[in-house]
């Protein structure tokens, strides 16, 4: 059964290549990147392990723990979990749950991140090549660690998906999931102050000490097996093995339970809500642009895929406060521009989010200008006051009222530029996104690299276009220079307005020319 699942996964990947050359190119790039990382990690650890096995052990534990944590937490916020083998599709086959899980877990390793993690974990074990028994223990640990990554990520996403889909709980869960991230701040600050004024040996001691602690956590334990055996600490090795196995067991049970429940209660859009009247449609102008804006605004409020993309914004101040070590820190000035960027980037896949409902825009022949501006305006109208408020709040917390013009220039410039780039991008780049009603955390079949490449392209362009404002703003704040601050404000608004207008205009032209092709691209993902 496990072999069948792995074969199915490989077959689906291969079929993906047949559908699109781009996907093949993206996969090869990803593979190349992956091989690079694996090579660096493995060679680096083996070299270090030959000279300083204790340090190598500590670093393996620390980096490994971050990797496991990443597998568990990242899918909840970004990228989602690879749903190529969606358990929902196996419901009717009557496969025993235990075999289904084993198959899904094995198939979960068959992906670029999975393979990179697995090969790196196994390769790192050879840091103890001088002690064959330690290598053996480390290999066992590596297998455990990879299983922990896959099973843990499935457990967290499957267990939290129903909660994250209902709006009432989403905020709560997001906050809960943020706790570890928030803790990184103090830990980091503590580490830094611990290292402060310490020479190389002190730093080494600190890292080894931290490694010892982390090796007791569920994330670090499997990575510490090899080190413990190398030191001849058999009791310690046993303890780490027990922690790893227990974590794996718990993850397995959670996944099992959550999946059992998810399979008989497929995601629904919540209990039949009703709205009163026409909502935004009666308040916005009765024009095609107004209609698109009303629809977009309604979706921002009602579609978890949109609200999910901005759900973290209320938490940003908290994270920044902790990271920056309390009020008075200039780190806080990052808040407003980052929020502006998130708002602008959120509509970069807008047409893909419409999914095939976009056919209505094509069949009604709505013109590109109405489509583009209708999608931008709600974000602009809501985003400008919000980001201005954030900018004022952040200079207040940072105690830098002198930086207000620069901060405003940075913020509004980022908002306008990212909206402009998004307007152009969403008319040109369509990639598979979670379907309407699906979990926002479920990455659609065969998306993976295509999504990353498209998003990276849009992000790179955004960054390049924001760069002038960014440089001016940072200079104005750091120097500090009041004149540069006002220049930032003027350049930010000017450049932003130009990029937005040009982006929307270019997007509209592309849309008018290619809307049927855009629809067919979406249909081909369906």
């Amino acid at each position: 059964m496990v072999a069948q699942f792995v074969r199915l996964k490989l077959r689906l990947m291969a079929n993906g290549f047949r559908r699109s050359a781009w996907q093949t190119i993206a996969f090869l790039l990803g593979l190349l990147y992956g091989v690079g990382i694996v090579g660096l990690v493995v060679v680096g650890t083996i070299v270090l392990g030959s000279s300083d096995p204790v340090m190598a052990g500590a670093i393996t534990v620390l980096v490994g723990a971050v990797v496991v944590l990443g597998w568990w937490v990242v899918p909840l916020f970004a990228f989602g979990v690879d749903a190529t083998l969606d358990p929902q599709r196996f419901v009717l086959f009557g496969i025993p749950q235990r075999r289904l899980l084993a198959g899904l877990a094995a198939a979960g390793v068959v992906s670029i991140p999975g393979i990179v993690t697995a090969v790196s974990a196994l390769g790192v074990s050879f840091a103890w090549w001088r002690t064959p028994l330690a290598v053996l223990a480390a290999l066992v640990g590596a297998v455990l660690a990879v299983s922990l990554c896959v099973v843990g990520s499935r457990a967290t996403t499957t267990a939290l998906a129903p909660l994250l889909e209902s709006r009432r709980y989403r905020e709560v869960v997001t906050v809960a999931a943020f706790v570890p991230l928030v803790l990184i701040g103090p830990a980091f600050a503590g580490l830094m102050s611990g290292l402060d004024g310490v020479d190389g040996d002190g730093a080494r001691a600190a890292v080894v000490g931290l490694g010892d602690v982390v090796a007791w956590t569920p994330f670090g334990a499997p990575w510490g097996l090899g080190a413990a055996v190398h030191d001849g600490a058999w009791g310690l090795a046993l303890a780490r093995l027990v922690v790893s196995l227990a974590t794996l067991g718990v993850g397995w049970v959670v996944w099992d339970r959550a999946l059992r429940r998810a399979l008989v209660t497929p995601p629904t859009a919540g209990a039949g809500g009703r709205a009163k009247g026409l909502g935004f449609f009666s308040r916005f102008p009765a024009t095609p642009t107004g209609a698109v804006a009303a629809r977009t605004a309604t979706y921002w409020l009602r579609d978890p895929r949109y609200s999910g993309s901005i759900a973290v914004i209320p938490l940003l101040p908290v994270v920044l406060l902790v990271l920056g070590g309390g009020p008075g820190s200039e780190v806080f000035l990052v808040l407003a521009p980052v929020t502006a960027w998130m708002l602008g980037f959120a509509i970069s896949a807008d047409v893909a989010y419409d999914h095939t409902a976009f056919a209505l825009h094509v069949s009604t022949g709505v013109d590109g200008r109405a489509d583009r501006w209708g999608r931008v305006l709600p974000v602009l109208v809501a985003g400008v006051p919000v980001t201005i408020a954030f900018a004022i709040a952040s200079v207040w917390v940072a105690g830098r009222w002198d930086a207000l013009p620069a901060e405003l220039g940075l913020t509004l410039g980022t908002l306008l530029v990212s909206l402009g780039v998004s307007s152009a991008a969403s008319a040109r780049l369509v990639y598979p996104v979670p379907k309407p009603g699906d979990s926002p955390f479920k990455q659609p079949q065969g998306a993976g690299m295509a999504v990353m490449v498209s998003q990276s392209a849009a992000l790179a362009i955004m960054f390049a276009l924001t760069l002038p404002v960014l440089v001016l703003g940072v200079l104005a704040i750091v120097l500090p220079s009041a004149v540069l601050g006002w220049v930032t404000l003027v350049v930010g608004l000017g450049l932003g307005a130009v990029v937005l207008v040009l982006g929307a205009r270019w997007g509209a032209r592309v849309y008018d020319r290619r809307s049927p092709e855009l629809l067919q691209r979406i249909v081909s993902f369906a």
Partner: protein
Amino acid sequence: MVEPTPAPQSPAVDSPSAPPDPRAALSLRGLWKRFGEKTAVAGIDLDVPAGSFYGLVGPNGAGKTTTLSMATGLLRPDHGTAHVHGTDLWADPVAGKARLGVLPDGVRLFDRLTGAQLITYAGLLRGMDRDTVAERTTDLLAALDLTADADTFVVDYSAGMTKKIALATALIHAPRTLVLDEPFEAVDPVSAANIRDILADYVRSGGTVVVSSHVMDLVQRMCDHVAVVAGGHLLAAGTIDEVRGGASLEDRFVELVGGRQSTEGLAWLRSS
């Protein structure tokens, strides 16, 4: 008139067929569409006379949806033209689309809107004014028996209700021609009868309706013209009586399309 067209092997570069008929509601010439290796539609010529109730029938995968998508501006043909009341749809999509009401098959709706919002949205996208949209939305909801669910989100509608609300979005701007892809799928018999009445009324008042279906009985009772499509080719087209030539439409369809299995197969499926 029955004219079984021979299967052309390659796209006709310069269409040998007659020029598009400017009086026809829809006039398709040499429509051709390939998806990778597969040719979905291989040179379809079809005139839908204005004021007709036209049925498009064919087996699964015949190219009905592809043909209708190319005739309504949703899918750009590789070759060929589609004229709507004399306007070349692909040369002037705005004017062409304004005369068409489209119910595509197998696409989603903006289902986070309520039924009333969705109809309003379609009306406003067409550039209609607010009062007319409001008035017609109320009428459409009543005619399609959806008034009670006007404020329910479309995502919570049943399959049949979803079909009906999609039909309403195609009707709101009172188009001259309606192109409906599988309009009766999943619709209950009472609603189907209501929809048939609405469509028949519309045809009587001078509108043109094109429906695709694979329910022959329905097409025979409802439509005055029919075209049979299979394997991307037009096998027959004309009035119902011309096409069926005395037999029932279903028998004639099977005769044209072929592919009936003898009843030997699947012996293992017999339960006793």
